[in-house]
């Protein structure tokens, strides 16, 4: 029955049909798009609420004077190391290896970060000195107020190697800089 009808009035019907079909297709595409938008927004990683002093927030590292030059101090809760360079500059380097993400310990004897996973090594600046890692360790923003060092672990900075302007210096007179 249906078939017969459609052959009786082909031109009008098919024109209207194809117009309706186009509308359906467009509506279908819109619906798909909406579904995709809904799903991606639903699944997008969200920022968690960050407690004072935990990773993701600002962390008080301590007074400038408590860090001697050419040392590295670990901040496990903040997931970073605070390097005080030879010239008194501060650098907060992430503890995550840039190869595949393992946690690197600081080896005081060798004066290197040595990754236990695939043996990459990084110096006090975070520069990669031994492969497989090819990129320097990420750093966090450091700022110094009232002779106290703070590290903002919410802002991770990716870099390929250490550059002078990454180090932060205490400006006050009498500091070790």
């Amino acid at each position, binding site marked *: 029955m249906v078939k017969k009808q459609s052959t009786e009035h082909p031109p009008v019907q098919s024109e209207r049909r194809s117009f309706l079909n186009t509308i359906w297709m467009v509506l279908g595409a819109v619906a798909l798009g909406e579904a995709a938008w809904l799903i991606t927004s639903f699944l997008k990683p969200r920022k968690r609420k960050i407690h004072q002093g935990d990773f993701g927030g600002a962390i008080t590292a301590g007074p400038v004077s408590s860090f001697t030059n050419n040392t590295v101090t670990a901040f496990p809760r903040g997931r970073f190391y605070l390097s005080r360079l030879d010239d008194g500059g501060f650098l907060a380097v992430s503890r995550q*290896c840039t190869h595949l993400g393992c946690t690197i310990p600081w080896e005081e004897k060798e004066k290197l970060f040595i990754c236990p996973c695939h043996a990459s090594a990084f110096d006090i600046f975070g520069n990669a000195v031994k492969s497989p890692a090819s990129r320097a360790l990420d750093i966090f923003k450091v700022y110094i107020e009232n002779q106290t060092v703070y590290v903002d672990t919410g802002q991770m900075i990716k870099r390929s190697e250490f550059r002078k302007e990454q180090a932060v210096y205490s400006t006050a007179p009498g500091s070790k800089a």
Partner: protein
Amino acid sequence: MNTHTENDQKHFISRFRRSISPGPIIPRTDKERKSAVINFFALHIHPPTVPETVLRFTHTFGLGGMALVLILIQFGTGILLKFAFEPTPMTAYASIQSLQTKTPFGQLIRNLHHWSASLLVMIIFLHMLRVYFTGAFHSPRQFNWIIGWAIFACVLAANFTGYLLPYDQLAYWAVMVSTGMLGYIPVIGPTLQSFFLGGADVGPATMRIFFAFHTALLPVIVLILAGFHFWRVRKAGGVVVPRASLAEISDNNQVRVPVLPNLLMRETVTALVLIAGILAFSVFFNATLGDPANPGLSPNPTKAPWYFAGFQELLLHIHPAFSVFVIPLAITLFLMLAPYINFDDNSEGVWFVSPKGRRMAIISGVLSVLLTLVLILIDDYAATGIKILNSIPPEISQGALPTFILMIGMGLFYRLMKSRFSATNNEAVQSVFVFIMTALIVLTIVGAVFRGKDMALSLPW
């Protein structure tokens, strides 16, 4: 109408039973057996009769059936585990501990899930090899080959997402380094990585995401794909019919035997032997549970799960963008498109295309083992001595250059095998396939077994 009144006269229980499946419970005549297969849902994935020759165990080795049994074991044990498991980083490890020590048969169920998962990967790999070497990827089975690979990908994903759940050191760091590999995929890598981790590193969000994938999304996809897979086998007229050589014409009118009991009996026996084996193994060997995950302390060495050890090994030698992206992509494309190559022969049902094909396959396999091992050794012990390589950027010296050489090498190998043996392209493509698969196996074994402290080559004993 007739049967209706007939049924009405029967006992209530009998009427109820026949409303489920109209045939007799135990079919006794051939006719009844055939109709039992057609009428009962779970059996009707089979045709009522099959050619006698496909019944031979060495035709399929029952591998597809075994894969199905293992999947069903995974569903059964997995659903049980879901009743015991608490999917948060704080509680997961403890819930597994208490499952093992306090829940009756808890350890056994976990062992079953653990060992079947790995066995499943090996069995479907072998199933895939069987399918390839009997030429069962030719038309009309081309698309089923692709569906098969989609199932393979899902099974690997299921294994990987499950791996994190016990949340011990092994699980935590294996997931960390494996998702780290994702990060090297050009352009979309970092987004993918942070999507699967739900943040910058493995944590509560990762657990939630992996658990959702593992116990909801992936099982559903696997079921749908498996249904599709079986339907395609049936649409192709059942499994490929064995032939002794290309000259033999595929004969559909050969002796056919009823599926019940001939095929079903064989399937049941295979399934029962497999179940008995895996049960016995799980009684004697416990799934490991290491120290609880500690984000501050990476163990040395940290390895990917064994089925990703091949990638991890490649990653030690070749620049990440190439070892986790370009090379796998090239191999995947080759595997997906292989059935659509314009072959000289349709070799369906003939093992290794021909005796010559078999000889070429063996030679390719041996060559591949030797070459892969030699390359690994050279790269580990000698390559740092090559000065020129150090003066060019690593993307080229360790990435583009070796990748280019490998691909050109495969092309040359194809040419060489084809002309040296004056072979058909079926035989030559098969040689390339064997070469790649063998290299993958060698890389996996080296990466999983022979890498010790600092990822240096070492003996496991």
